């Protein structure tokens, strides 16, 4: 897990503040679950585990959930919140 990901201030509403850059973001409930898993130590490349965490909470999630999670991780990587070397593994 990157130190920037660990430093994020994340509220229950999905509002996120990056104390190192001043940037703010919003994520939905699904994104919050994925972020929580990443901060617990799940590898960003392990999108299968991330998707499983989301499905535990939302059993009716669509079949292409894994692709959505991969997109989310890609966005985090582009923002520098997930290390670029961590490749997606689904």
């Amino acid at each position, binding site marked *: 897990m990157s130190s920037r990901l660990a430093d994020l*201030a994340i509220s229950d509403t999905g509002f996120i503040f990056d104390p190192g850059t001043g940037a703010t973001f919003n994520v939905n409930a699904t994104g919050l679950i994925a972020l929580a898993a990443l901060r617990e130590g799940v590898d960003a490349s392990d999108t299968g585990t991330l998707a499983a965490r989301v499905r535990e909470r939302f059993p009716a999630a669509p079949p292409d959930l894994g692709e959505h999670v991969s997109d989310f991780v890609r966005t985090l990587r582009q923002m520098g919140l997930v290390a670029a070397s961590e490749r997606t593994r689904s």
Partner: protein
Amino acid sequence: MNASARPLTIAVTGLNATDNPGPGVPVLRSLRDGARPGERRIGLTYDALDPGVYARDLADRVFLLTYPSAGAHAFLDRLTSIHERAPLDVIIPTLDAELPLFIALEPQLRAMGIALFVPTAQQLELRGKAQLAALGRAAGIDVPETAVVASVEDIARVDGKVRYPLYVKGPYYGATLATCREEAIAAYYRALAAWGGPVILQARVRGEEVNLVGVGDGKGGLLGPVVMKKLALTDKGKGWAGVTIRHEALVDVAARFAAATRWRGPLEVEALRAGPTQYHVIEINPRFPAWVHLATGAGVDLPRVVVDLARGETPAALPPYEVGKLFVRISLDQVIDMRDFERIVTTGEIAHAATISASLRVRPETTS
């Protein structure tokens, strides 16, 4: 009552809280937030229409100053006259253009019982825009390529070294982006007309602007550094909103500057972040910035530190600042009685408590 036992009277300059705001109003707000019993705040300013003159809850009294361009003698005469009317213990100058004069007059002011905590003339020169690149090389601080020009011919001589686009800067305020020699020459004349020389050409570097405020203790230490990123800008590039962020790399840059110069007084470091730990320092201002009240709101009352240091006292230990504290500036209209304006124009002085009472007395009676 001796001087050390009576409540302090602290004067602050720079009440021009316009769209290019002076730091006087936020410094006064910080002092008000942490005011000690009986303490008095005095505003010192140059123009009867400076908005801070009429902010009644900030200063007990406000006095007009003589412009520094009138010379040291006239400036000191005016300060002496103010000191007779309202004995001052500390002055916090907040404007670049007046600082050389306050530095020059510090011995006389100290003899009058007025304390300052300002840099020395040599320190001021070291961080000047014209000298900043050399200081950067000496202190290991990354400063964009810079050249000082004294004539149009100089621009032609150095613009091969500092490539376009570049910024043309006056000694105190303002920066104009020039994309070619013709634009640089036009900007050179504008800067010269506004502020006089020297005029500086500085290479444009890209990055996200982050700023730091702190106080140098005069012994090489840096007290209470707070880092802020601007979130919204005016068309003059002034921060209209910002947030405190954690950035140890910039604190380290400022600490190296304070150590190298043994900086004495407030400072603001303006930097562009080119990478997670890479900074280009574009300016170091020898005063508080207009956003200093954000630092106070984040837990670090730097104007109070300056008051303590000016009086030879050890400031209280400063807590770490709160990261994620925002400021959002506001523009509002102050409605002023013509008598208030008359007072400041004709007497150069306004006492807010008296003014409020007077305005209550002259309020027309209502009919029921």
